């Protein structure tokens, strides 16, 4: 599992090396922009799923998240155009630091020109991540052909994403909120399982708002309602199997 993950990274860095001055030193241990972008995408999809089961979801929030997902998709589709290398050279960020606040928040101009911020490896990156870190491996395990790190697969997945977004808005429209599974009823099973895994991982980590940025980590959204929890409980079992593989 770890090997496949690292391999994916190395492949990416070989592509990047040509484009960027200075290349990616120690890319094996460093989360690249693509990885972080992928994490953001995964997080966004989880957020869209974790809607309140009892009360209608906040439409504004859903629309904003869906728009963010679309933006990421579009950029992934044109991969290579205005992407950036993680400028920080600072040693080895551990593999579980996928969601670095710094890179994704920076504008293009900052990323291209300026020095890396020193806080990239600091404590305030979320710990949600231990769950997410295993996901790409799980994904790779399930779909060795359509590795997420390749542009082709992003196009395939885009069909799946688009469908998911449509499903979500259909659901909001029809107001048959039902359970999480309903939102993705028609999506092909492998994609659905990724979401189930993400949901399960998130649900099983400690949730709730911390009082400082450092404590943000476990929460992606409000703690799931009780009906969510029963769904997640069943998924936990599936997740355990994946993680231990």
């Amino acid at each position, binding site marked *: 599992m770890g090997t496949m993950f690292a391999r994916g990274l190395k492949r990416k860095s070989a592509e990047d090396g040509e484009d960027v001055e200075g290349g990616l030193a120690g890319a094996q241990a460093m989360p690249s922009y693509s990885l972080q972008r992928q994490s953001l995408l995964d997080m966004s999809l989880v957020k869209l799923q974790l809607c309140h089961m009892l009360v209608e979801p906040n439409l504004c929030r859903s629309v904003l998240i869906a*728009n963010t997902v679309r933006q990421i998709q579009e950029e992934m589709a044109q991969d290579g155009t205005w992407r950036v290398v993680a400028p920080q050279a600072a040693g080895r960020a551990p593999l579980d630091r996928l969601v670095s606040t710094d890179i994704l928040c920076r504008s293009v101009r900052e990323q291209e020109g300026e020095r890396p911020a020193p806080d990239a490896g600091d404590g305030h990156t979320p710990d949600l991540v231990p769950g997410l870190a295993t996901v790409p491996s799980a994904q790779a395990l399930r779909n060795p052909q359509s590795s997420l790190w390749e542009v082709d697969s992003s196009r395939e997945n885009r069909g799946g994403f688009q469908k998911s977004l449509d499903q979500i808005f259909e659901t909001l429209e029809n107001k048959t909120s039902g359970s999480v599974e309903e939102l993705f009823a028609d999506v092909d099973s492998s994609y659905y399982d990724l979401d189930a895994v993400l949901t399960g991982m998130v649900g099983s980590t400690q949730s709730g708002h911390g009082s400082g940025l450092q404590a943000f980590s476990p929460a992606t959204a409000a703690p799931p309602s009780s009906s969510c929890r029963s769904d997640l409980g069943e998924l936990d079992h599936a997740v355990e199997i994946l993680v231990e593989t």
Partner: protein
Amino acid sequence: MSADIISTVEFNYSGDLLATGDKGGRVVIFQREQENKSRPHSRGEYNVYSTFQSHEPEFDYLKSLEIEEKINKIRWLPQQNAAHFLLSTNDKTIKLWKISERDKRAEGYNLKDEDGRLRDPFRITALRVPKLKPMDLMVEASPRRIFANAHTYHINSISVNSDHETYLSADDLRINLWHLEITDRSFNIVDIKPVNMEELTEVITAAEFHPHQCNVFVYSSSKGTVRLCDMRSSALCDRHSKFFEEPEDPSSRSFFSEIISSISDVKFSHSGRYMMTRDYLSVKVWDLNMESRPVETHQVHEYLRSKLCSLYENDCIFDKFECCWSGSDSAIMTGSYNNFFRMFDRNTRRDVTLEASRENSKPRASLKPRKVCTGGKRKKDEISVDSLDFNKKILHTAWHPAENIIAVAATNNLYIFQDKVN
């Protein structure tokens, strides 16, 4: 989350009354005490005047969904007689409440005893005129109108028109116009719902009537735009008269650009010449005659820009902060995190950060300005960005229409501050 979290704060037109709504559907009204003549320097304090349950939780059986009782907005009507009227709304239903005082009681009825028991008419041998006697003040709130079933989506705004006869209510996709006397129908004046919901990319976030021109209103969107509409031009105001949007700086674009540009509140100035919009990181003042860009931009908490990913993760990036003008429009105020709120003086261009918390201020003591340390060495009394408490958010603030008195809602506490009298 507890039911007494304050969800809206609003002064009435004179400033003598201050209404708050909470998550549990309750409305609490405070009244300013009459100033004491023997102590001319002591300002009137606000004390509880009336408390009532405005909305109850409901269940929509068709959709299997709960409808929250949380009060999203309260708006006062201008006072026309001894009673006070306000509109309060939750996600789906708007109610008109009448708040009236009773301080006299009639005594000496003919047909009933003092304890209310009916008297036998045949035993009445003489008639008397009932007399009004003083009693302890009682404040009663009664619902006079219920405006229901007009909104499919969640109501985010209500605004009383300057004609004092109509008002608008806005949800995520539609805006309706009501007559205060008529509850069984409303007119739809804006509809941005796409035919195909899959194409939905933008929602309405706030709406308000112009303070003087009764045919003009504005509404803001999740894409950071404001549309000004004139109801005289057509019945359905899908075509705007003016379109306010600041062009995006392409060099500062990130995945979070759209989310932080989403406008959470829009307010006209009292003069009616300007309007103010609040997005996630800033407050902007617009001249109604210039659509291309705001005339002023005030940074509320720019130090959060590098933390947007974390704030997205824990959903704080979706917090909807409100903003308000001072009575003279010379200053504006809005809330932030860690129980901080910010005030900007438009004339002197000075701004200040203050904190609403019991631990850090004593009653009647001046508030000490606060400062957030954005990097480098933290000075004494500064607080670093990573120490901010993002659960302590000030979303709702209000400014007295004439004096420098402000109301600040910090979770379930209400703070009222006023200018120190020399």
